[in-house]
């Protein structure tokens, strides 16, 4: 499964939202565990320390002088002996502080009148930390204080070991929770991925509503608003196409009538003074018809106007042949040699749009090439990309105007030809629809212009 990271990834966001709280929970859990376990452990060790004190008490006997005597062997066995690496001290003293046995410097735990007579305290003794217990008792007769102290290494080690165990245990649990959450997220976002595949798999011009089946309730509003949007786009595209079709019909029909009537009138008035004025009128109607056609083409070339964008694989060489065939008479009438230098090359395109593109380029070339000149259409593949070129031997386009000629209704300086200034705008628009680039160069013979369309899709 392709994993998408980054700020817009639901995986990433959920993970980052989960990770911080889970890490906090982990720390808190270990701390709670530590606090829960540390007192029983300390109590157990304190208990064992108090047994050492009781063991000492057991060895106290009243001496012959009435003074209590402590009969400890030279090398006592535990609990009266320190383990390796630990220290153990004891002191038997009277309530007035007189030491009877053991280490006289050992301090006493303050008496807090506890029921069992034991008092515990943490101290520093001879530069080391000690746990110290004082047992105040009168069971041998006179009140005595038995104090024992040991280094808390074992209890610290026990607490530490348990802490580590808790940490490992809690980490394993949290990781398991995270993994389960991640798997859960994956499963939960599957409908989203299905939805995105459904959207990606649609042809770009498909404006039909998305299916709401198997869409989770949380995502349903998204799908529904998408469908509303698609509805609106479909409506506006349909109404635009309807408008264009109507406009085309309403413009073209009377223009056809006017044009044909003027042609008939021109023929009927041949040889009379009226003929010249009718020819002027005819020229005007022709220009009007041309402009109307170009405007309609431009409107239909806009990407938003694509009802059924017929992007089909087509051969540019075939297209070149077709367009030359239909433009040949116009070129011959202007005394221009129109020819081709083409190789077969496939592009994915809308046939009639590319037809308009090439037709406009040739139309332009014919307008700007004097009689006796030539126009060559080239197509083929270069570096794996298809190109289309119209090369003429006409007046050319100065570099300073090469950007501006693409603007709508722009007409070159001193241009007395009857173009409406939309030809290259149409070419530019159609090229854009096909992810192709229009560039303008000097003609290859050193004169004229070379208009080149480079397709970005691999040929």
């Amino acid at each position, binding site marked *: 499964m392709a994993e998408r990271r980054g700020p817009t990834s639901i995986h990433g966001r959920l993970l980052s939202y989960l990770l911080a709280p889970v890490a906090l929970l982990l720390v808190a859990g270990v701390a709670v565990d530590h606090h829960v376990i540390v007192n029983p452990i300390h109590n157990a060790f304190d208990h064992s320390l108090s047994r050492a004190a009781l063991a000492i008490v057991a060895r106290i006997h009243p001496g012959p002088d009435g003074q209590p005597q402590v009969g400890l062997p030279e090398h006592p066995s535990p609990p009266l002996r320190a383990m390796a690496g630990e220290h153990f001290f004891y002191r038997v003293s009277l309530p007035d502080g007189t030491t009877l046995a053991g280490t006289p410097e050992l301090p006493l735990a303050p008496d807090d009148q506890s029921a069992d007579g034991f008092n515990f305290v943490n101290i520093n003794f001879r530069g080391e930390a000690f746990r110290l217990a004082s047992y105040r008792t009168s069971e041998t007769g006179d009140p005595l204080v038995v104090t024992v102290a040991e280094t808390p290494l074992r209890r610290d080690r026990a607490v530490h070991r348990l802490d580590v165990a808790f940490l490992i245990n809690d980490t394993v649990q949290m990781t398991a929770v995270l993994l389960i959450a991640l798997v859960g997220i994956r499963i939960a976002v599957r409908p989203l991925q299905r939805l995105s595949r459904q959207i990606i798999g649609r042809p770009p011009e498909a404006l039909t509503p998305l299916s709401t089946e198997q869409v989770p309730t949380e995502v349903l509003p998204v799908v529904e608003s998408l469908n509303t949007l698609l509805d609106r786009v479909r409506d506006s595209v349909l109404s635009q196409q309807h408008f264009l*079709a109507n406009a*085309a*019909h309403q*413009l*073209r*029909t*009377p*223009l*056809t*009538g*006017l*044009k*044909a*009537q003027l*042609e*008939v009138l021109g*023929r009927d008035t041949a040889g009379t003074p009226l003929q010249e004025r009718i020819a002027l009128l005819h020229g005007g109607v022709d220009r009007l*018809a041309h402009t109307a*056609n170009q405007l*309609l*083409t431009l409107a*239909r070339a806009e990407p938003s106007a694509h009802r*059924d964008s*017929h992007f089909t694989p087509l051969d540019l060489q075939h297209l070149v*042949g077709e367009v*030359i*065939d239909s433009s*040949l008479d116009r070129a011959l009438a202007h005394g221009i*040699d*129109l*020819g*081709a*230098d*083409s190789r077969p090359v496939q592009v994915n395109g809308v*046939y*009639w749009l590319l037809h308009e593109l090439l037709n406009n380029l040739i139309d332009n070339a014919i307008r700007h090439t004097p009689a006796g000149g*030539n126009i*060559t*259409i080239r197509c083929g593949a270069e570096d794996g990309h298809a190109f289309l070129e119209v090369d003429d031997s006409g007046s050319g386009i100065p570099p300073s105007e090469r950007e501006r000629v693409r603007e709508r209704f722009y007409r070159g300086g001193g241009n007395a030809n009857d173009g409406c200034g939309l030809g290259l705008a149409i070419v530019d628009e159609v090229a854009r629809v096909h992810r192709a680039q229009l560039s303008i160069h000097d003609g290859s013979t050193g004169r004229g212009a070379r208009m080149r369309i480079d397709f970005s899709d691999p040929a």
Partner: protein
Amino acid sequence: MRILLVEDDSLVSDAITRGLVGTGYVVDPVPDAESVAARLADTHYDLAIVDLGLPGEDGLSLVRKLRRSGSSLPLLIVTARDGLDDRINALDLGADDYLVKPFALPELAARCRALIRRATAAAANEIVIGGLRIDLSGRRALNAAGEVLELTRREWSILECLAHHSGRVVSKERLTQAITGWSEDISGNAIEVHVSRLRSKLGGSATVRGIRGLGYRLEDG
């Protein structure tokens, strides 16, 4: 030659009628598809010009109906719609050619001439271009003076292929395919040689124009 014109716009209808009558045709204009059947029942037409955007029954449905009824009347569609869809639709339904408004009258007249010629050629098995008469069943060509041209088999094949697409550019590849029935190894240069011989034999009755980088076109005189 009689042409049936189905066009609702009177400005267009009147101009086409005047224009075509001026070039020697008889034109009967009708304003809607519904009047067509009655006209066809009692008159023989060589061609019908049908506007697609008719009131009531539209042009496409008229074309469909005519073809379903078995009529082989040549049909030229004129329309203000320029989408490829409509064009393919009309041609699929059985129209013979398609012209987008606004067109020039000479263009319309040329299309009419070509369609009528094609229909006549199919009937008579003969194609006439300028002064040249090509007898398809007799596999011979006659010049303006009525003399049979002495053509080799390859020259005849080239002329036949060009004549079938007269007025249109025929690619060198297509011409090569047309003559490779006899020889497998024909180079582009060989075609040029055959065409140049054919050209001199045709004399002035018809012209074979060479189109740089594309092929050849057979033109009137």
